[in-house]
């Protein structure tokens, strides 16, 4: 197992380097002077010159990349062109909010999605399977921002039981998490159904039944345990996606998270923040993937005891 983990760790390094390179190039592809872009539209010529020397933008390109990397390692992502705060601070302030939403959404999604998928797989092509499948299809087709708006219309405007946005109390978390969970729960349900169907058709399921075990034991102990291995992987990936993909939900509910930061920065042309936020998100996503891989190696005995 250790060799597996080490291999996975090593393979993330080129991806990290690639992302940093990509972002580095992106900045230089923008029209105009990079120093001006980084300083922002409000900056004075003196500020621009300051940025130029600070970031060494007059030096050759490889020197620039080298200093870019060294600054990255020190978590120095520059300063926001809007607020002049260090980018890392802006990101750090908002990350816990996004994480909270992501955790809530994933939990909801697993709680409803996995059982739904199992039931669908155990009773395929019955009315209950069709209902769940259709619901899942609705879930992945629904525009997240529209669902959010509709929920607001229902619960905030008409019924007036839940707030329409902002943070503060636990009630604020409900609507955004449910909205965010809608896509994920559908996805997880579909995946669970497909995986369970495959597992249930395996030889070892027939063996289990031939031993006279109760059907419930066959489904949970023999089948689900196998199916959960790829499902856990998918759940982990979805969690990673939610960290940055909550952009639309956060906008609808005015939730101060990482996604909204990215969007606001794009609208305001605040390039240091765009760059920094995307980079942090990329890093987080890779780390989540790595964790998922480690969990996978731990849970599958074929890899654990190699």
């Amino acid at each position, binding site marked *: 197992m250790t060799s597996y983990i080490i291999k996975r760790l090593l393979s993330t390094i080129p991806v990290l380097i690639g992302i940093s390179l990509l972002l580095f190039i992106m900045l230089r592809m923008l029209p105009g002077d990079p120093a001006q872009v980084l300083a922002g539209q409000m900056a004075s010529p003196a500020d621009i010159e300051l940025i130029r020397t600070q970031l060494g933008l007059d030096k050759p390109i490889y020197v620039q990349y080298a200093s870019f990397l060294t600054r990255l390692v020190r978590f120095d992502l520059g300063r926001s062109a809007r607020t002049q705060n260090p980018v890392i601070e802006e990101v750090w302030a908002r990350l816990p909010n996004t994480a909270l939403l992501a955790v809530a959404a994933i939990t909801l999604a697993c709680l409803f999605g996995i059982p739904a998928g199992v039931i669908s797989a155990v009773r395929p092509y019955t009315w209950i399977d069709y209902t769940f499948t259709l619901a899942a*299809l609705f879930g992945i087709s629904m*525009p997240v921002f529209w669902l959010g708006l509709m929920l607001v219309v229902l619960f905030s405007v008409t019924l007036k039981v839940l707030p329409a946005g902002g943070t503060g109390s636990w009630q604020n978390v409900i609507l955004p998490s449910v909205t965010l969970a809608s896509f994920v729960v559908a996805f997880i349900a579909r995946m669970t159904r497909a995986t369970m169907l495959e597992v249930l058709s395996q030889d070892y399921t027939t063996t289990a039944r031939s031993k006279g075990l109760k059907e419930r034991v066959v489904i949970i102990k023999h089948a689900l345990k196998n199916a959960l291995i790829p499902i856990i992987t998918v759940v982990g990936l979805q969690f990673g996606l939610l960290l940055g993909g909550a952009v639309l939900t956060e906008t609808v509910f005015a939730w101060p998270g990482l996604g909204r930061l990215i969007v606001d920065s794009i609208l305001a042309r605040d390039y240091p923040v765009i760059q920094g936020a995307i980079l942090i998100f990329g890093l987080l996503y890779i780390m989540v*993937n790595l964790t998922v891989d480690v969990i996978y190696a731990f849970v599958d005995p074929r890899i654990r005891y190699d």
Partner: protein
Amino acid sequence: MTERTPKPVPGKDQAKGLDSPFRRGWAKLRRNKAALVGGCMILIYVACALLAPVLFSGNPSAPNLGKSLEPPSRAELLGTDELGRSILGRVIYGSRISLLIAVGVVAFGLIVGVPLGLISGYYRGKIDFGLQRVTDMLLSFPGFLLALALVAILGVGLENTVISIGISMVPIYIRLVRGCVLSVREEVYVEAARASGTRDAVILLRHILPNVMVPITVQTSLGMGTAILFAAGLGFLGIGVQPPTPEWGAMLGSARVYIFNAPHASTFPGMAIFLAVLSFNLLGDGLRDALDPRFKL
């Protein structure tokens, strides 16, 4: 003691002697009611797009501030938006925009992704390795975020929306095609063709491409739905198609602030998006079930 499985209709397909996967798949598809519903809805959307001037007279983007934010009535079936424009008219014309985007994105993905996937999978070697690393990198981001980042570089507007979403779709096609090519190229008939001296281009076109068509077809349908969804998302955020062009997502975005007094303006454009994406997903799922040989009962 027993579990339920569906009752297939015995003998029908055999009697007609269908062998090609597409003909067999078509027969299966026709039995899939959900997929048919999806297909019909898509046709309705296409009809709306083509017949828009017939269905709605006048300029859908012309403001009429006197009638701002009126709820649905007999005169205006879906009500009016914040600039007094008919939501019905804008939804109908919006189908043009959305379908255009869907086709554009998928075409971009196909034109760039399929050849790259074919080359990568068939020739292997350094090209494959390099391309795979780039694809890995691109796929390591959630699709929407990637499109978002590209819009940040390229700027807003219809063309940039299509290009950004298209670029985020390319790696999916590359992966798909490459995977298919990798399995097909090991088949004996490909070996035989090479042994008899057939040129590579001919092998690719005649032997490998037909096999790749099946997953491409499925992905195209699903991809169109995704494209509409992404474009609407960008529009909602204000960084996609720009006003006054009637794009459903952008309509939702501008209607959002009036949600407390005019919820209708947020309801109908969103429903248009939802039903469009749903139909492409229904069709795509149906195609997958019909054409994927593993799903034979």
